[in-house]
């Protein structure tokens, strides 16, 4: 157990330090989602009343696409100098690596969301009509849902041809329940028409189920030869 946390922490700190110095993933994600926001503003140009109904969808589409940009880079870093091969032959627990990568991505996407949300508010003149604090659990649980499966599928698509395209093809179908939960929950809070409790429970269930599945299967995926 001790070594699991040691490995997790070491990998996580390494990833954050690398990201802090290069800012590769964060910059590309930020610019990408900014582009998505601007294109949406041009293509819809909604009134404040309408925008409450559609922004839940737009926000999560922007974050979903941006997260894919970051997720694609997670494992590519470990391919250089055969780091992943070295990891495979070492006795370090495989799940430590997975947890570190997932948590790292979670932090990056959360930073992105914190920076991008004010932009959405400005561009779409948003006033939240429901209990706004509930957006925080929805954002955290939804982000984890995207990131935990995304990290797993990114590891899976490493072994495939055109892996950059493979990741969204694998990730999006499985993420549909989570996306429904995030979008419907966000819309429910923005419009204040109904309660978002059900969607928070749904996202929590999704997170528990798929985190367990990822942790159970990651070792097999890492060592698949």
């Amino acid at each position, binding site marked *: 157990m001790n070594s699991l946390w040691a490995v997790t922490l070491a990998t996580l700190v390494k990833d954050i330090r690398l990201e802090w110095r290069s800012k590769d993933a964060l910059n590309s994600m930020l610019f990408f989602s900014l582009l998505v926001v601007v294109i949406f503003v041009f293509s819809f140009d909604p009134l404040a009343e309408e925008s409450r109904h559609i922004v839940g969808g737009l926000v999560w589409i922007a974050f979903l696409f941006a997260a894919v940009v970051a997720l694609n880079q997670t494992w590519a870093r470990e391919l250089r100098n055969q780091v992943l091969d070295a990891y495979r032959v070492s006795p370090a627990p495989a799940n430590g690596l997975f947890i570190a990568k997932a948590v790292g991505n979670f932090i990056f996407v959360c930073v992105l969301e914190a920076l991008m949300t004010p932009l959405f508010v400005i561009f779409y003149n948003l006033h939240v009509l429901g209990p706004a604090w509930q957006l925080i659990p929805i954002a955290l649980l939804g982000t984890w849902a995207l990131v935990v499966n995304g990290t797993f599928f990114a590891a899976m698509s490493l072994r*495939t*041809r055109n892996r950059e395209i*493979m990741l969204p093809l694998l990730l999006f179908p499985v993420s549909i*329940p989570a996306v429904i939960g995030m979008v419907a929950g966000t819309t429910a809070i923005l419009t204040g028409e109904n309660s978002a409790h059900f969607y928070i429970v749904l996202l929590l*269930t999704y997170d528990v189920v798929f985190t367990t599945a990822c942790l159970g299967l990651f070792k*097999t*995926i890492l060592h698949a030869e």
Partner: protein
Amino acid sequence: MKKLFPILALLTAIFLIYTSYQALRVAPTDALQGDVYRIIYYHVPSAWTAFLLFFINFIASVQYLARTRASSQRTVQWVVIAIGVAGVAATFLPQVQSLLPAGMRPSAVATTVLAIPAFYFLLGWLFPGDRMDMLALTAAEVGVVFCTIVLVTGPIWARPVWGIWWAPGDIRLTSTLVLWLIYVSYLVLRRFSSSAQTQILAAALAIFGALDVPLVYLSIWFFRTQHPQPVIGGGGSMDPRMLHTLLLSWMAFLCFGFLVCWSRFRMEVLKREVEGAEAMESLAGGAATPKASLPLSRSAR
């Protein structure tokens, strides 16, 4: 076995023609929908066949992953037995029975639950080693074809009856569509992955897909369903003559699906034999003359 295939194919063709005749001529016309409803004899059997094939794919994937280690194989076996026993016992508890949707019989649920251990051990016994993975691939491919038929015939039927092609947010329609999407992504993964690890990756994806389906159901729980209840084991009721034709039609579709799976499976076996032979040949080196090389090398070129 090889000689049996054309005979079975002929019998299946006759059976399909007979059920088409039954569906289009003999079965009574629906009082409300008129003749339009007759598409049910293609829509519903395709759906049942597709779900059965996806179920087989899931069982085969679990079995394939479990076989990678002896310890996990034993664990999964006990889990499967436990699911069977607990599932059957639970359906006869009054608390669980009250949770079942109205009209769904506990015995039908118990039989469905029992299918999990039954299929697990039957497939494990019939398909040793790498053949399990070939079975998973075959079931997924043919399942996607049948699921496509469901998704095409559904809107054709919905348009005259409901007035719309597609009911967005409908629980059955959405879950079938998501199932189809998951299995298409499964096939894409198999296509784009290099051969050595594909099988394990695909098996893992199949398990993720199977976990996803209940969550899709949960996520659209609040939406009303426009789709009728299940015909068997559910609350729906049907004229016995219609049910008879429907079941005959399903039998015919199952025979047809079995034949397609069989030939696809044979093809996969041959393909892997050829690949293996080619790999052995290149290992042996180019020095060996073509005549002295492995027997399959000529047909491979």
